[in-house]
């Protein structure tokens, strides 16, 4: 008999009605199970509705007979509320709905924004589903957390209601899950036959068959390997497919396919997909949605939490604003996670209150508190919200809203249950309320963070691991917790980096017995302006002393205080905003994406204009973006073509925002604009004037620009330098310098020096350095606010400094770095290959052979069942031309015999032989096996390369 059964059995014997209710202690004693464990089971049973409780001290429990009948049905499901069972519950409720008024009900009606920001999307979805005879396949595109899965789910329910699909079943598959193992992925999707591979002991149907008559949702479809794409395309076109290990496509399935991706649809991976899919639904990010919708979303998400805890949730205006402002990149998903976090906290703080939990601004975690100032930056949005907001908001549980759908933002366990159990447990152990709260808050943070920032956090820590001991990272985390909980010091993302680097270099110095740093009077006077940080620094010192058991010198406290001051957030207000508007579906947004990733700036937005868009619509759209990004200091509009450059005055008229327009936008120019506006005190006119001069890409101005460049070079003999800044200029900064020097050498950059600088006398040092050096970038614990890019420590350390290198390349090469995208057009590559053939080969006529060689590539692509990049095709064509030339000049390459015999067993060998037939037919050329060896090797090398890249 399990513990749960024992508890239930006791209740059924002794507590069959309200007046017979028993207490936790009574049960504990009677069945000999520890009280906390009994409590846990009771809570669980209450949640499942199998028993009920009477509130009071102590709480009494009794068996709930009304629900007993349902029990058998529910038993099969996982009983935790809010996860696995949830979708089924909502399905049930929809079924009930069905009975009354089928066909009339429209599941999209209840979706927030269905009449507003999602109106088009909903129309598209309905059209896609209703299109005769079998509907159209659909691709949903949207940023992380914008609700792609949710939307697909709605589509499914709509289809079910309208009897468009015959069978229940919304099958989801995330292509990223098996992206590293295409064969496994394919076997999941399409199934396999017995003997297809080791371990395939019997035939098995895939998800496609499982979804027959229903809907299949493929998430993160950009991770689907080429083989999978091919098979899915075939299936889309013909409705038939083969299982793994079968040669003929004999299986038939009627499946509605819905795909989703976060990827830019213009990306090469997706282009083939986009061509084949008639309906593309673009979901907006949260920022683009109206204030009313944001509020509705917030209410909805809070209601879900209220349903879970069966209590009202009360919150003030400022909490609402902070929550909405706390969403930085993750859209609705992030909002959901943040709401879960604060509700969990509120739940803990209001456990004594049976009816209501209160969310107080003062108790919010710092990253959510920051939301309020984020929102305050956006006056327009704040204004819109304030109009809609009541001073206090009370959210009541609402059964109609149901329980959350399954999605990746849902925790895989019931958080409130954990809190409840743990609190009871700790209370039983005699801890006081504050201690309990501290304990559990740490837990909540840990749970939530580990869940919803999985990838990101792991990566950061692991990259830090390479340069700092794990012990120090752990100690830093401990310090971080202390500061968060005890000192109310706002800990930001870069804290772990900066602090652990600081501690690590300090400890290294102590251990190596180097002399201690002296304290300058500058430092002392500076620190005395920040008594709070000095106090905290003392605490940190104690922690370090306690951990390492050696005394930390007083001077270190001062440096620590400076570091803490530096790490506090800088107010971000008043930056000039940038709107990039360009023709094409994603031209503007991809430029903006590149720049905001490189410089991590937030004062820039894109506006894409498909060619068919009317100027009127474009003007309105741009006006909206201008309003969004304006921080009161005007907006710079960067456009691609002349007709748009007349918009300035119209925009100013429309929005009352000072707008200046520059045309012929390029990525380099957007970068330049972002750099210049990154300074808080830069004004629109200056930035505009400087950028006009920078604007030199049209032919007429090119000469002038070149001249200017040479003049600049002459006048600027100073060597280029990067500043690495830390509180001492010796510890962290030196580590950064070592790291950067390594990156610079690795990228063969020899004309940039890395100079370390201390925060204390930063201004003077920089002024001095600028006499001899031209500073091109800065990095470190604090942004010195120079007119050059600043790279934060976390960006520097991630990905081996790659973003840093591209930044340096941008600096060194403003104009030339218009990325060459070979994967764009086929005709371009055919032309390109012809051009190169002409340049390098003596005996062959490029115009004559290029078609055949191109056909050779296509043949190989088809037969080897792998996608060949255009760059690889060009290499292959060049290699083949070489082989043909060698054949003609009778100087073919030779290969040792043992290699030759090995290659004959390669699975590509027969395919290459077949491809060579093309050459034989066309030119009467028979390539020797030695040459075949090199062609096969060329393919294998490429494959090896792709494999290592994917790892």
């Amino acid at each position, binding site marked *: 008999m399990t513990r749960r059964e024992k508890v239930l059995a006791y209740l059924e014997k002794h507590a069959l009605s309200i007046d017979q209710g028993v207490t936790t202690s009574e049960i504990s004693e009677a069945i000999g199970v520890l009280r906390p464990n009994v409590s846990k089971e009771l809570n669980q049973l209450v949640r499942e509705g199998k028993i009920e409780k009477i509130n009071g001290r102590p709480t009494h429990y009794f068996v709930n007979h009304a629900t007993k009948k349902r029990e058998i049905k529910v038993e099969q499901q996982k009983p935790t509320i809010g996860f696995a069972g949830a979708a089924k519950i909502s399905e049930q409720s929809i079924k009930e709905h069905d009975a009354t008024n089928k066909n009339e009900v429209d599941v999209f009606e209840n979706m927030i924004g269905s009449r507003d920001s999602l109106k088009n999307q909903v129309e598209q979805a309905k059209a896609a589903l209703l299109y005769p005879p079998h509907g159209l396949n659909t691709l949903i595109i949207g940023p992380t957390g914008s609700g792609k899965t949710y939307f697909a789910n709605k589509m499914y329910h709509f289809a079910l209601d309208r009897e468009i699909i015959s069978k229940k079943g919304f099958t989801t598959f995330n292509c990223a899950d098996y992206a590293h193992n295409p064969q496994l992925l394919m076997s999941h999707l399409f199934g396999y036959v017995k003997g297809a591979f080791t371990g395939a002991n019997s035939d098995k149907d895939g998800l496609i068959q499982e979804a027959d008559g229903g809907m299949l949702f493929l998430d993160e479809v950009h991770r689907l390997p080429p083989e999978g794409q091919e098979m899915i395309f075939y299936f889309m076109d013909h409705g038939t497919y083969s299982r793994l290990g079968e040669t003929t496509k004999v299986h038939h399935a009627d499946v509605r396919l819905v795909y989703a991706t976060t990827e830019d649809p213009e990306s090469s991976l997706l282009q083939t997909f986009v061509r084949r899919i008639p309906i593309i639904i673009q979901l907006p990010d949260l920022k683009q949605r109206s204030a009313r919708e944001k509020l509705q979303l917030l209410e909805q998400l809070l209601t879900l939490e209220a349903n879970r805890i069966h209590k009202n949730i009360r919150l003030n205006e400022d909490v609402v604003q902070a929550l909405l402002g706390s969403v930085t990149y993750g859209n609705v998903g992030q909002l959901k996670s943040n709401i879960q976090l604060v509700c969990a906290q509120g739940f803990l703080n209001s456990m004594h209150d049976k009816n209501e939990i209160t969310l107080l601004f003062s108790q919010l975690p710092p990253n959510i508190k920051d939301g309020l100032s984020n929102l305050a930056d956006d006056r327009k949005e704040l204004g819109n919200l304030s109009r809609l907001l009541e001073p206090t908001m009370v959210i009541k549980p609402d059964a109609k809203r149901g329980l959350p759908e399954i999605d990746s933002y849902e925790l895989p366990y019931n958080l409130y249950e954990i809190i409840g159990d743990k609190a009871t447990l700790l209370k039983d152990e005699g801890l006081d309320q504050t201690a309990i709260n501290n304990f559990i808050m740490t837990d909540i943070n840990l749970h939530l963070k580990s869940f919803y920032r999985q990838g990101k956090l792991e990566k950061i820590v692991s990259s830090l691991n390479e340069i700092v001991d794990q012990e120090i990272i752990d100690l830093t985390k401990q310090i971080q917790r202390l500061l968060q909980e005890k000192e109310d010091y706002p800990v930001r993302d870069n804290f772990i980096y900066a602090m652990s680097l600081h501690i690590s270099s300090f400890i290294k110095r102590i251990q190596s017995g180097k002399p201690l740093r002296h304290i300058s009077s500058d430092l002392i006077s500076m620190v005395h302006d920040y008594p709070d940080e000095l106090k905290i620094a003392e605490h940190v010192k104690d922690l370090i002393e306690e951990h390492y058991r050696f005394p930390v010198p007083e001077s270190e406290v001062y440096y620590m205080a400076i570091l803490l001051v530096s790490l506090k957030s800088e107010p971000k207000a008043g930056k000039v905003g940038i709107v990039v508007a360009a023709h094409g579906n994603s031209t503007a947004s991809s430029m903006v994406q590149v720049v905001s990733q490189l410089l991590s700036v937030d004062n820039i937005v894109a506006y894409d204009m498909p060619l068919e868009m009317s100027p009127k619509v474009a003007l309105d759209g741009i006006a909206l973006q201008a309003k969004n990004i304006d921080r009161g200091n005007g907006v710079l509009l960067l456009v691609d073509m002349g007709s748009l450059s007349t918009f300035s005055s119209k925009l100013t008229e429309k929005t009352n925002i000072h707008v200046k327009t520059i045309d012929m936008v390029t990525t380099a120019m957007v970068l330049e604009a972002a750099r210049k506006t990154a300074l808080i005190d830069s004004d629109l006119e200056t930035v505009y004037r400087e950028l006009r001069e920078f604007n030199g890409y049209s032919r007429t101005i090119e000469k002038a620009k070149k001249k200017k460049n040479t003049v600049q070079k002459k006048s600027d003999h100073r060597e280029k330098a990067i500043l690495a800044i830390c509180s001492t200029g010796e510890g962290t900064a030196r580590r950064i310098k070592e790291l950067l*020097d390594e990156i610079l*050498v*690795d*990228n*063969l950059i*020899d004309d940039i020096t890395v100079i370390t600088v201390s925060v204390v006398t930063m201004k003077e040092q920089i002024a001095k350095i600028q006499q001899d050096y031209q500073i091109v970038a800065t990095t470190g614990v604090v942004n010195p606010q120079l007119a050059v890019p600043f790279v934060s420590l976390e960006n520097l350390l991630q990905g081996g400094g790659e973003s840093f290198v591209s930044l340096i390349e941008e600096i060194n090469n403003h104009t*030339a*770095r*218009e990325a*060459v995208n*070979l994967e764009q057009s086929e005709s371009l590559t055919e032309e*390109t290959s012809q051009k190169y053939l002409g*340049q*390098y*080969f*003596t*005996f062959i006529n490029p115009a004559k052979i290029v078609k055949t060689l191109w056909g050779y590539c296509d043949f190989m692509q088809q037969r080897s069942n792998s996608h060949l*990049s255009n*760059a*690889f095709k*060009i*290499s*292959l064509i*060049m*290699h083949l031309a*070489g082989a043909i030339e*060698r054949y003609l*000049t*009778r*100087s073919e*390459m*030779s*290969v*040792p015999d043992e290699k030759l015999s090995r290659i004959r067993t390669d699975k590509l060998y027969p395919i290459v032989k077949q491809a060579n037939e093309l050459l034989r037919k066309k030119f009467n050329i028979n390539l020797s096996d030695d040459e075949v060896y*090199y*062609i096969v*090797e*060329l393919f294998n*090398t490429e494959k*090896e*390369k792709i494999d*290592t890249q994917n790892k």
Partner: protein
Amino acid sequence: MTMDVRLLRIDSRLLHGQVTTNWAKAVNVNRILVVSDRVARDQTRKTLIVQAAPPGIRVNVITLDKMIRIYHDRRFDILKPMILVEDAVDARCIVEGGIKIDSINIGAISFDDTRVMVTDAIAVNAADVAAFKWFHAHGIKLDVRKVSNDSSKNLWKSLSEKGLV
């Protein structure tokens, strides 16, 4: 310690496919440096060359000037590069700039209006011949091989046979 240049190779096609991979493995390099002023300015060719790199080995396209600069810069001593140049003139330029080698590998030099064929894969013009003479005078071996396991031929002999030197 100076930079250990494992191979200096003349090939008008610079880095291409299997041939380069073969050499990179044979002479054990940790970097491939494509040295050409023309290519360093041509973004498309640069992209193509960088993408054609053998797995695990990085390729940089740099100017002649930079090649000489980093060769003399101690920070870059950790490189064990294979250097690829387009023609003999560029090769001579960097050797004159101080890069120490005792033999030059010649793969292919394409034919054009100014050049005459010397072997089936190598064509030369007056400037090339002048450069090869210079190498010969400095005791640098002119090694003709397409891939590492070909048997080596001496270009000087071929040039002499054609009466070019």
